[in-house]
């Protein structure tokens, strides 16, 4: 019987050896061949962002324009091939899109800190400033994207952290286990990015559901029934006068100071806004004053401002601020000469 026990142990050991050898081989393959996206994935992981930042750091200094922003610059509801940065790249500009859904001035600042800490020296930075993100009830007003927070959180001072709210609990057993596995297994750490590369959706279930809804026509019916109407945006914009107590103002000011200190040319785009849709909520003198407050803050800090707040027609918007494919093309035409200077 001891012989049988040893044989069983030997067999299990051999199986484990093969199992771990395959996992290691998969990790090597992922490291070597996993593609870079044209923009951050919808649900990007910290290791993916880390890799994107490392790639940027390897680029010759002052060679690339880095785009930092929210879903408007990311290309909400559009394939990556149709968003503004891809259009700019097609026009010959060396641009790298690090925008993501849920951006805000606090996120812009954290990402700038991360880039600079990793030795990235861009030719210029383009970022957008969206009036809705000065609203304390905006989801990204006081929150850093968790994957960005994982990398840049320790670069922020105690005072800066005090302005922010936590997004994920990193102390639970589940979170620690997840962190440990992610630290040792690249395939697991990049799973959200790999899923998006494979399924073009956050996961297989969503991809399957999407395919069924498209085939059955349910998706088209849903979108027809849920066209953006003004009432959906009540409360999206806060028209209280902006001041230095506003967290987005605090981080915008910090970003401007950081860019000036590092002598990085910066272009800030005041986000196009659908005034036809939002007329009842934002076409007031205070909206204009807030816009002027932001513009002055930027210009005094040496940032070039491209005010696109009223530049786009209603037909070029998907909703309150996200642009259609044609809108993105128009935006690229406006930005191209500004960035090529």
């Amino acid at each position, binding site marked *: 019987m001891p012989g049988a026990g040893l044989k069983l142990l*030997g*067999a*299990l*050991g*051999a*199986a*484990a*050896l*093969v*199992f771990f*050898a*395959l*996992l290691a081989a*998969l990790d090597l393959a992922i490291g070597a061949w996993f593609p870079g996206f044209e923009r951050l994935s919808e*649900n990007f*992981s910290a290791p993916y962002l880390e890799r994107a930042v490392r790639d940027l750091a390897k680029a010759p200094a002052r060679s690339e324009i880095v785009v930092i922003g929210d*879903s408007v610059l990311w290309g*909400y509801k559009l394939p990556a091939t149709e968003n503004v940065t891809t259009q700019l790249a097609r026009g010959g500009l060396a641009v790298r899109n690090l925008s993501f*859904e*849920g951006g805000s001035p606090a996120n812009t600042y954290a990402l700038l800190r991360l880039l600079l800490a990793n030795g990235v020296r861009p030719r210029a930075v383009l970022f957008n400033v969206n009036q809705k993100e000065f609203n304390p009830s905006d*989801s990204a007003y006081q*929150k850093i*994207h*968790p994957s960005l927070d994982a990398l840049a959180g320790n670069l922020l001072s105690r005072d800066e952290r005090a302005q922010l709210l936590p*997004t*994920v609990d990193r102390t639970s057993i589940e979170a620690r286990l*997840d962190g440990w596995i992610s630290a040792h297994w690249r*395939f*697991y750490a990049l*799973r*959200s990015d*790999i*899923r998006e590369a*494979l399924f073009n959706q*956050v*996961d*297989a*279930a*969503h991809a399957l559901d999407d395919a069924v809804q498209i085939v059955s026509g349910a998706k088209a019916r849903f979108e027809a029934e849920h066209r*953006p109407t003004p009432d*959906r945006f009540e409360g999206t914009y806060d028209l209280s006068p902006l001041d230095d107590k506003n967290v987005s103002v605090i981080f915008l000011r910090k970003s401007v100071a950081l860019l000036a200190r590092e002598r990085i040319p910066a272009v800030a785009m005041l986000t196009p806004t659908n005034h036809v849709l939002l007329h009842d909520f934002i076409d007031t003198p205070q909206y204009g004053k807030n816009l002027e407050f932001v513009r002055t803050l930027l210009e005094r800090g040496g940032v070039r401002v491209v005010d696109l707040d009223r530049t786009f027609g209603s037909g070029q918007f998907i*909703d309150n601020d*996200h642009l259609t494919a044609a809108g993105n093309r128009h935006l690229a035409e406006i930005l191209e000469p500004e960035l090529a200077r």
Partner: protein
Amino acid sequence: MIEIVPGAKNVEEVLEHDPVFKLVGMRLAHPAVLGVVLFLIVVAIVLLGPASESRFIYTDF
């Protein structure tokens, strides 16, 4: 479930007729195959699992 084999005299004879035992006894059940199968199962779980790690609530609408 091990079948009751009519006429079988001992455990070995019963097992020889059991489909699970036959499967495990096949050459295919080599430890390396077990390692590969385990690897495929784990990779499939990670790939096909739900995006529960979607940790940022994005409320555009």
